[in-house]
């Protein structure tokens, strides 16, 4: 059932959001954001799902079908899967930057508590 996917995506998203909004440890916030990110992939891939469809590979189809027949609706939507691939690549870069900044914060402030890292306010 695809509904399960949507529910799981929503649950993981909320879990990540909870971590971002309530955890003060910078690493835990980064983990929360990674969870939210993963949930958006699950959501978008689930949107691409079509009942009784195959993966969007049109070369050498089985069951004697032609690529054109496959493309008419029996494959999952490849564009949305492409979205996810692009977003995963961006997400990796993002996590690297996140952790680099976390290391810098730890070096400068000798803490990972975001609540102690707020020299700028008001």
């Amino acid at each position, binding site marked *: 059932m695809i509904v399960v996917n949507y529910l799981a995506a929503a649950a993981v998203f909320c879990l990540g*959001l909870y971590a*971002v*909004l*309530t*955890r*003060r440890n*910078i690493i835990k*916030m980064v983990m929360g*954001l990674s969870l*939210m*990110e993963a949930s*958006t992939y699950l*959501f*978008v891939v689930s*949107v*691409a799902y079509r009942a009784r469809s195959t993966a969007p590979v049109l070369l050498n189809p089985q069951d004697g079908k032609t690529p054109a027949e496959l493309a008419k609706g029996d494959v999952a*939507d490849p*564009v*949305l899967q492409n*979205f996810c691939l*692009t*977003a995963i690549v*961006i997400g990796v*870069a*993002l996590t690297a*930057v*996140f952790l680099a*900044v*976390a290391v*810098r*914060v730890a070096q*400068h*402030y000798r803490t990972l508590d*975001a*609540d102690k*890292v*707020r*020299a*700028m*306010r*008001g």
Partner: protein
Amino acid sequence: MTTPVLAALLPLAVVIPLTGAVAAPLLARLSRRLPLVVSVVALAGAAVPLALAAPSVFSGTVVVHYLGGWVPVHGAALGVGFAADPFGLVFALAFVVIGALLLVSTLSQFGGLGPRELGGYACLFQLLIAALVGSALTADLFNLFVWFEVAALSSYGLTGFLLERPVAAEAAFKILVLTTLASFLLFVGIGLLYAGHGALNLAQLHGSLARGTRTPDRIALGLLVAGFATKAGLVPFHGWLPDAHTAAPGPVSALFSGLMVSMGVLAIGRLAFQVYASGSTAVLGVLLVLGLASALLGAVLALAQDDLKRLLAYDTISQMGIVVVGLATGTAAGVGGATYHFVNHALFKSLLFLCAGAILHANGVERLSEMGSLVRRMPVVTAAFVLGVLSIVGVPPFNSYVSLGLIHDALHETHQEAAYVLMLVAQVVTIAALGRATWLAFFRRRPQPYENPERLRAGMITAMSGLGVCCVAAGALPEQILRYVVAPAQATLLHGSAYARAVLDGGRGAAPAPVAFQYGNVEELVTVAVSVVVAAALAYGYLRIREPVPVRALRAVHTGSVNDYAAYAVGGAVLVVAVLALAI
């Protein structure tokens, strides 16, 4: 040149700075300053295809190029399209021209840094400009998301560029968290839209949405508006903006404030008018509320700041609010005024941030309470700063007079008198905030002299005079700007179907519709004069009283905690989505 040639050259506006970004760190091995010099050349090169396209684009043609030759078939576009319409081209040209001037300023301000730092700086700077130009030209929603991410990644690097300052790491973390949250909203919003319509091309989406806007489409619009509002720094998505501007070096603050935040406004404008059919959603109402909240809150918080760059950053929030209010009127005068005000803001805010950077560079002070007597020490900077302030204030003949006047006219035209009054209040507080800053920094007497001040360098003066000249020109030639730039820009935005036809079928685009503005309108002149007098009284009074309770409460809400800022942004996003989904 013919339109197909211009169209084929269009991607060069992005490709040249991207190439420069790759080359910059490598060239740093040859010579320290080479990366910055190459960056200036690359941005000038990027301006060439844009400038070549400008005459035909501003006469109403939309120059369209599909990357890789994947042209639309039967009204369905699979390839990524680049379309220069007048609205996008105004932004793209401002991005490359002002970006090049800021690099000239960096060239002399950071000339002393090492080759690795300069190479990295030039790389990130060009990457950000390339992303901004790409977002202004693209006609594809997912491509827009990718440019958003490219801009975001390079902005993180630039925010944390002076990593020896602890606040830089703090600011970088805040901008990372909030922009990442925004990118999730955009990603899900684009996924929803694609799932409903099977299209990513803005023109194709326009056609599909014109047949009917269902609830998922409105939710998607809410997510997209909230995501781009974070980039634009609108209240309540603004938590990252003042910190990032305070911690970054002067030219980077100018780049963020003058150029990067406008990317959000540009995208919101495109979504509200060119993608969604006007009147099918409550987006204009939502934008009006967001814009007014930003205009007021930004102005009040600017009045309360002691750090000069932070003051200017809060004013950026206020000015973006004004631009969004202009868009929210949905009329020719309002949208035209918003476009004009974006150009003005990019010019005067870059100029003011360069002044703040120059003061810090020369005297090592960044707080207003430590400044004073700068008029005798730095007459050039004083002149530039006062020019910028007068432009914001909007005294004729300076540029904001026309753009603000147009937005005021639009609010009268649509009978939104309450919004007009709130705009005037925001303007009065803005004038008071900047007047207070000018007095404290430049004209107040400072008892003790500055310690071993550094002298201003040629590049900084060149950039400041360049921006100053553009600022004066934008105010001195309102007739020409209204006729040749603003009129076509507002027409292309307000006539989404003409834009859609041009992008998909190669039509001509919307015909420029004239925007009327009475320069010598007595009512407007009296309003400006009265606001200046009231603002002077307010600034004078504010210098003499303790911080009033409402201001203190507002400042207390800005706790500096990432968790709180994320909570404000998420709350704002939920509200925006709920209102757009439920209102018909």
